[in-house]
């Protein structure tokens, strides 16, 4: 190791014999201080899997995920743990899977052992009592292997662990360099500059090319931007919750965008639709605020059209020289279901899948799924210029930009059990905002008020307040305000 080389490189001289050992020991100690850091950079650290003993006997784990190609990780796992067979089942992405999962939980059987769930939807499964707090199987010990904010997403109170972070979606600005060069645009570092460039492009192109698309049907996109502005939407205090969708932090973000929408400097096309991909692929949209998994999705959805024209830059900031901040959009974890007969084996698999080098690196280079593991984030193996998403961005080290973004994501950002409703209701308010029938503040206030109507399904709410109390009997009338 380094310190032994140091030892030999200083031949002892008789004259300085008394001082030398002290000096050398001090030097060695100093080097040792940096050893963990050196190790993290040079070697890929994985947890000691032998600490997680599965149940005895042959085991078959059923795994639900929508990560395409995750089934290729199964044989690697089976090789390392011959007693456990893994059956990977792609039952559909997001809500499609959640509906099946909730039904299985309600029915008491038919669910998998391990399931992929997005961070923002996790509490709705905790509240229906469907998933195991795997801290009892020692999952808390692997905390240090994961990006702190992703761990916080799975373990909001720092004690119970409801899942192992799988991927993350820190946000950055993906821009089409060809269009930027064509119109002489500069890459904005602040939102003020961003607005100026949006205006410049809209005017120069006669409204034909827009700087970005304001995503009108993906609440987590907006929430990610609010997250980067220091907002938190939900807070759990013991048995009651506070919801603040219309906080000043959210308002600042939405007002900024509402102005651009009103002036027609940005597009408002629903994301993940043929219309959006057509607009991006035919260079009608010059940039897109994308989570780490975004460039991979775009490369695939555009069939590599415009490939190589893109670059990723850090998310614009609210003021010059502020502490760099980003937000998160999406990202998911793997949970263990209470129905599972093999919760220990399921815990082991969840940890291995997201900490082991093979699947973590492969997820990024094959499917653009960005790691939540610290070693994964630091690994130079993520930088493969000839593979998407780097290839899509002209060989740029995309992972590095997103790794920096991940470090700048606020750690504390709890979600609520009724987020599924909040998520959909956002579309309603933004549709009104775009139609011009609501201001940003009105839209956020309506979002807040509407979303307090649904918690009665899970709890009772004090009318007109943002406090949601999760105890006591539901009030048949007052609890369900009718307008």
């Amino acid at each position, binding site marked *: 190791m380094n310190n032994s080389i140091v030892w030999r490189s200083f031949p002892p001289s008789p004259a300085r014999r008394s001082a030398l050992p002290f000096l050398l020991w001090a030097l060695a100690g100093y080097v040792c201080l940096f050893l963990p850091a050196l190790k993290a950079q040079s070697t890929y650290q994985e947890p000691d899997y032998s600490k997680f003993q599965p149940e005895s006997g042959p085991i078959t784990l059923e795994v639900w995920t929508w990560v395409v190609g995750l089934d290729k990780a199964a044989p690697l796992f089976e090789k390392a743990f011959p007693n456990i067979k893994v059956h990977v089942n792609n039952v559909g992405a997001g809500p499609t899977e959640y509906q099946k999962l909730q039904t299985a939980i309600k029915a008491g059987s038919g669910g998998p052992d391990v399931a992929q769930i997005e961070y923002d939807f996790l509490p709705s499964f905790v509240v229906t009592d469907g998933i195991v707090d795997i801290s009892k199987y020692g999952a808390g010990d692997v905390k240090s292997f994961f990006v702190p904010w992703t761990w916080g997403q799975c373990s909001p109170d720092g004690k119970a662990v409801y899942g192992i972070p799988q991927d993350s979606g820190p946000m950055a600005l993906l821009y089409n360099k060809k269009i930027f060069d064509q119109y002489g645009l500069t890459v904005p570092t602040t939102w003020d500059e961003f607005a100026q460039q949006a205006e410049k492009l809209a005017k120069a192109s006669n409204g034909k090319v827009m700087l970005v698309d304001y995503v*009108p049907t993906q609440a987590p996109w907006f929430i990610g931007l609010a997250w980067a502005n220091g907002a938190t939407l939900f807070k759990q205090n013991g048995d009651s919750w506070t919801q603040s969708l219309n906080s000043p932090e959210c308002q600042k973000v939405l007002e900024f965008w509402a102005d651009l929408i009103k002036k027609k400097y940005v597009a408002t096309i629903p994301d993940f639709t043929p219309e959006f991909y057509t607009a991006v692929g035919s260079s009608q949209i010059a940039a897109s605020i994308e989570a780490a998994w975004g460039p991979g999705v775009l490369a695939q959805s555009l069939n590599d059209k415009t490939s190589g024209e893109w670059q990723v830059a850090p998310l614009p900031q609210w003021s010059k020289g502020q502490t760099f901040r980003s937000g998160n959009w999406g990202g998911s974890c793997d949970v263990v279901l209470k129905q599972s007969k093999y919760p220990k084996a399921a815990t082991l698999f969840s940890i291995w899948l997201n900490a082991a080098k093979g699947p973590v690196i492969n997820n990024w280079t094959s499917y653009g799924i960005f790691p939540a593991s610290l070693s994964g984030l630091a690994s130079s193996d993520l930088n493969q210029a000839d593979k998407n998403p780097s290839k899509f961005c002209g060989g740029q080290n995309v992972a590095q930009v997103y790794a920096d973004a991940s470090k700048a994501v606020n750690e504390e950002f709890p979600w609520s059990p009724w987020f599924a409703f909040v998520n959909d209701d956002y579309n309603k308010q933004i549709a009104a905002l775009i139609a011009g029938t609501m201001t940003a503040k009105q839209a956020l206030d309506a979002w807040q008020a509407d979303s307090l109507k649904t918690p009665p399904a899970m709890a009772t709410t004090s009318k007109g307040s943002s406090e949601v109390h999760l105890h006591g009997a539901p009030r048949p009338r007052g609890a369900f305000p009718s307008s």
Partner: protein
Amino acid sequence: MRRYRKTAYLFLTPFLAVFIAFYLAPVGYALYLSLFVRKRIGVGPPKEVFGGLANYMRAVQDTDFLIGLKNMFVFGVVQVPIMLGLAILLALLLHQSRGFFMKICRTAYFMPYGIPTAIGAMVWGYLYAPNLSPFNQILRALHQGTIDFLSPAVVLFSIANIVTWTWTGYNMITLFAALQNIPQDLYEAARVDGAKTWDIVRRIQIPLLLPALRLLFIFSVIGTSQLFTEAFVLRPLGYLADNITPNLYVYLTAARDANYSYAGALAILLALLIFVISGPFLRRIASR
């Protein structure tokens, strides 16, 4: 006699078994679930406790649900007559025409019915996308502005259009078959009496189509109450209200908000409503 009854049950068993397992039992279970409410006692997940008719009381005061029902009525009042009117017109025209042309038309009109609803809705979703829509491209070329087919005010009619496109052919074929059954001598007698084509349509064909039409009307009303797939498929393409159709609202209450007991109550109420509306018609058909 007794032996015959046994045989009858034997033949009915396959149907009854499936009917009970996949139809009556779930309805019974929904009814059972609908009597419970979620309640929290202290920290932890909520418990389901018996709540009597609390969910039903909530449902009849739920403006979102009531607006969904209103949408359903608007849809039925506008779409069903248009679809059946078109079906009658097409059936009469086909009945008049002969040969190859008729066969091609008959197949072409019927074809949408053979396409799975979800696929059809996806194709229409593409046709409705504001910037990609060929309709809008035509309108733009004519400098007529564009229509956002997915905007909240229009989308119910966009869905109606998909439903009309899918089901007109099916209704037409049924009416066409009914027309084929009208004895030829009725037409001959009418001609001898000096009836013009319009008289034949008005006094012979339409009256004799009425039984089939009544049945189709009932099917359409029931179909209207079950609208779901089109709305569900169009949903990711823009903003579609949760309660654009009552069935979508019931689905989201169960699958998204995990509130199965309330969804059960909503579904039972919806079924009762349809029963009340369609019951008298069904009885009239059965009595004939």
